[in-house]
Each structure stands twice: as C-alpha cells, then as structure tokens.
C-alpha cells in the first residue's frame, strides 16, 4: 500500500510537472515567440522520428486514376504569384522553350554535372498521379512526369558523407535576398516517387506549376515540392545554407520534416 502510494505520488508529480511545463510553454509562447522555437524544433524532430517509424516498410503514396484528377490544379508560390519577384531572365528563358536551361548537380557528388531539359527527358522516367497536400489545408490531384531523383543521384554518384539534398529554385519572394530552397534527406531522395518533374497532366510543366523542372516528394506537404529548380546540391549537414534549418520556409519556422 505504501509502495503503491509512493509510486502514485511520483507519477502524479511527474504528470503535474509535465502539464505545468506544457501550460507554461504556451504562456511563454504568448510572451515571446523566440522562447518557444527550440520546443517547436523538438516537435519537428519528434514528428519525423514517429512518422519515419511508421514508414519503415518504405510504402508508396497512394496513386490515383486519370478521372480523379483536379480540373484546375491550384497554385501557391512560384512565378506568377503576387509575392514572387518577376524575373526578366526567367521570362526570356521561358519564351525560348527553356532551350538554354541547365540543371546544376553539385556538392558532395563524384561527377558534378549540368543537364539540359532534353538530357533529363532522355533519362528513365516515371509518371504518377498523386494528391498534392498543401500545408494550408487544401488538396488536389495531378499527374507528374519526371526523372526519379534516386536514379539521377546514382548517375552522378553520391559521396559517402552526403546526407541531404538541397534544391535551389529560380524564384524569390519579394524583399528577400535568397531564392526559394528546401531540402530532403536520402530516405526521401531515393523514394521511388520522388521525381524531378518536367511534365504535368500529360503536357510540359507550365510556368505557374514550376517550369521547367520541379521536385515532387509525395510523402511531404506542399512547401517541400520546390518549383523552378536551378540547382541541386548534396551536403553532409543542413547547416550548410541559410540559418541552418534546411530551407527558406524552414528558416522561417516551417517544419523541416513536413509529413503532415
């Protein structure tokens, strides 16, 4: 009985402490957003570990039928959005059918290279009809065609210490000094449905959806699927760029692992 009481008190004390901590955190957040940041980053890591535990068998995202596709796929970010700085150089390249476009692949790779759209199209390709889940809440189904990222990375040869792949875009938010960029780890980079898409809904990828080339990483939400890719860089650590959280949105406070 005494032992039971003892254990009960310890557990109650621990529970009370946990509850008070969580409540205190909320209050602290109200007082200063900076104070909460480490906890929210901890939540990001916790979320990645829990979600990855359920993804240990490496499942595919569900794929859909042609007749399930959205009539008018919505857009968010990328050239054409009100908050993206127009870029005459991009428009010039687009008017030429992206003939001068080259994707740079560099960083911790054995054979750094750049590829034209034609070269990318001649590589193995995958077409998938998937659901795009926006972090805001909306969702739409579209068809994407592109080169599997895993194949491309094997083609250039990853170095042993490569851990993450950064994707740098050509578009930039008005008033910000860096272009949009994001990153994924090798588990997602080598996922069969992670592709660099140059085609959408059976046609070439239109400008508002990320022409000439965009990332599709189907186990994560919208902002990880960077548009208008200019260069991809293999690195050993997320801290190589920006504030070190692994991307433009991520440096703002968005979760690096965006599986939900």
């Amino acid at each position, binding site marked *: 009985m005494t032992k039971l009481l003892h254990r009960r008190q310890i557990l109650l004390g621990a529970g009370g402490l946990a509850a008070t901590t*969580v409540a205190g955190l909320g209050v602290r957040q109200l007082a200063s957003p900076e104070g*909460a940041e480490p906890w*929210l980053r901890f*939540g990001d890591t916790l979320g990645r570990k829990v979600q990855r535990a359920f993804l240990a068998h490496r499942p595919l*995202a569900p794929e859909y039928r042609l007749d399930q596709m959205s009539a008018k796929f919505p857009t968010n970010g990328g050239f054409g959005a009100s908050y993206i700085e127009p870029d005459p150089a991009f428009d010039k390249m687009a008017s030429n059918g992206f003939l001068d476009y080259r994707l740079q692949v560099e960083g911790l790779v054995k054979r750094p290279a750049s590829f034209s759209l034609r070269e990318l199209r001649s590589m193995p390709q995958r077409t998938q009809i998937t659901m795009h889940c926006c972090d805001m809440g909306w*969702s739409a189904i579209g068809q994407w065609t592109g080169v599997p990222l895993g194949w491309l990375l094997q083609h250039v040869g990853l170095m042993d210490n490569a851990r993450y792949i950064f994707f740098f875009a050509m578009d930039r938010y*008005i008033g910000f000094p860096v272009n949009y960029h994001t990153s994924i780890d090798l588990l997602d980079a080598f996922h069969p449905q992670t592709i660099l898409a140059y085609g959408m809904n059976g046609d070439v990828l239109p400008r508002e959806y990320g022409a000439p080339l965009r990332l599709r990483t189907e186990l994560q939400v919208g902002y990880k699927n960077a548009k208008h890719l200019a260069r991809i860089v293999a690195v050993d650590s997320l801290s190589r760029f920006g504030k070190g959280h692994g991307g433009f949105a991520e440096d703002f406070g968005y979760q690096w692992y965006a599986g939900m």
Partner: protein
Amino acid sequence: MNEKFQHSAETLSLPETDGGDTGRAPSAGITIYRHPWPVRLFHWVNVCCFIILLMSGLQIFNAYPRLHVGQIGYYDTPAVFEIASNRDVANPRSWIAIDGREVLDTTGILGEVRDEGIFGIQTIAFPPWAILPQKAMDLHDGRGWHFLTLYFFAANLFAYLIYGIASGRFRRTLVPDRDQLRASSIARDLWMHLRLKHATGAEAERYNLLQKTSYILVLFLLLPSMVLTGMTMSPSFVAAFPWLIDMFAGRQTARLIHFISASLLVGFVVIHIFQLFVAGFLNEMRSILTGWFRVPEKRK
C-alpha cells in the same frame, strides 16, 4: 452498487445500499476515493493538450478557412462550410456560408478583412485571441504547436483507453446499469438535468446515464476521431496506412470531420465546465485533483 467507486477504508463497513433512488443513501456526507491516479493524470494532460491543439488548430484552419467533402478541395471547388468575407478593407463584411449560402453574418466577430501587403487581402477567420500563436497568419508556428502536442495527446489517450479497458474501470463506471436504462429512470434523469439538479447520496456515487453516454462518446468516438482524421490529412501517415483515406472517404472529408469533432468537443467542454458549477465546484475540483469526492447529502 457501491463497488462503482472504490471506498475509503473507513466507509467500507457501511451497509450496502441499492442506490437506485436519488437521495436515499446512508453514504451521503462521506468521502469516497472516486478518481484513481490514471484518471486524474489523463484528465489534466488532456486539458493542457486540448487547449494547445484547439487554439493552434484554429490558427491552421485560418490558413484555409474552407471545408470540403471528398478527396480534393481548393479555392475553385465548392465548400460545404466557409468563413468568407467581401475582401473589402474599407467596408468589411464577413459571414459563415454553408453549401455556398450565407447563413450567419459574422462581421466584427469572425473573418476580419486585412491587407497583408504582398500576400494580398486576407480573411482572418478566427480572431487572434482564439488562436495560437496569438497573431494572425502564423501558420508555421501554429503547425509547430499542433504537431508538437498531438503526440502527447494521442499517447495520453491511447494509454488511458488501454488502462480503462484493462482495469475494468470503463465497464464498472461507464457501461449503463440495467436500472438506468428503464424509461422511468431515463425520464427522471432528463428531468433532473433540465432543472439543473445534481444527484445526491448513493446515486451520486455513480455516473448518471447522460454522463455515461457523453463520456463514452467523447472517449470512444470524438477523441479517437481527432487522431484518425488528423492522420488522414498527413501524406506520410496516409502512405503508411492507406485505408485511412477510404475510412473517411477522402482527405477533405477527414478535415471536415476533424473540425466537426473538435466543435463537438468544445461543446462537451462547455457543458462539462457548466456542470462543474451545478454539481459543486470545490468538491468536483477536489475529486479530479486528489481523487477524493464527498458524496452530496440529500437536499432538505
């Protein structure tokens, strides 16, 4: 009947009562050990998680204040529920629309119209005081709070459901007794609720039928549905458990159910807190904090 709640040692010698009649009970006035520690632990962890999840959830909802049925849904598809505005900063007007038809003018309460610079005119569905963080357009930290807290919420709920089933507590305290299901008992129970009269004596030692029903609904339907519909909105969880999408007939339907379940839980909490005052604030608070509950005496 008195086995419903564990008695303290000094009351165990009291004679058994049938407990069937309100206020007819020798146990009135005594103190019983009503809530063992797992119940109290679950309750308070759940309170903290619920507040954070609700407020950060409203912050996330604000990013896209429209709800759909089915797999897909975006600005060009019809919404079954929407907090909308005329997007006119100078002369704002906002409303709740159901199936595209305005049902309630919410100007000044919900759907504030704001000019957010390069991001254009925005409709802020829920006001800053109701959301976490308490400023509009903070989707990333809203997501951060939601996604940090949900694992504690889900683990707490899962552990409690296991405990409640394994210990037999749910069977003892939540499954309605046969006498409670008689039409006359149901009618009396409803009548007592309508008059805001709480049980006394032995009858106060067990939950009444409406309590049992609402606790069963909350524990086995609403709280689990929050977890499952939440998972259905996540592309990683859907890849791991593809049946979720079929179970809720699409990601947007899951989001709709997530919102409805959350609203029903808010309704439950409002009544729950109201009943706290009806049944006796100090006694109820003592029982959920320490476990000890004083059985109310029969009203004179």
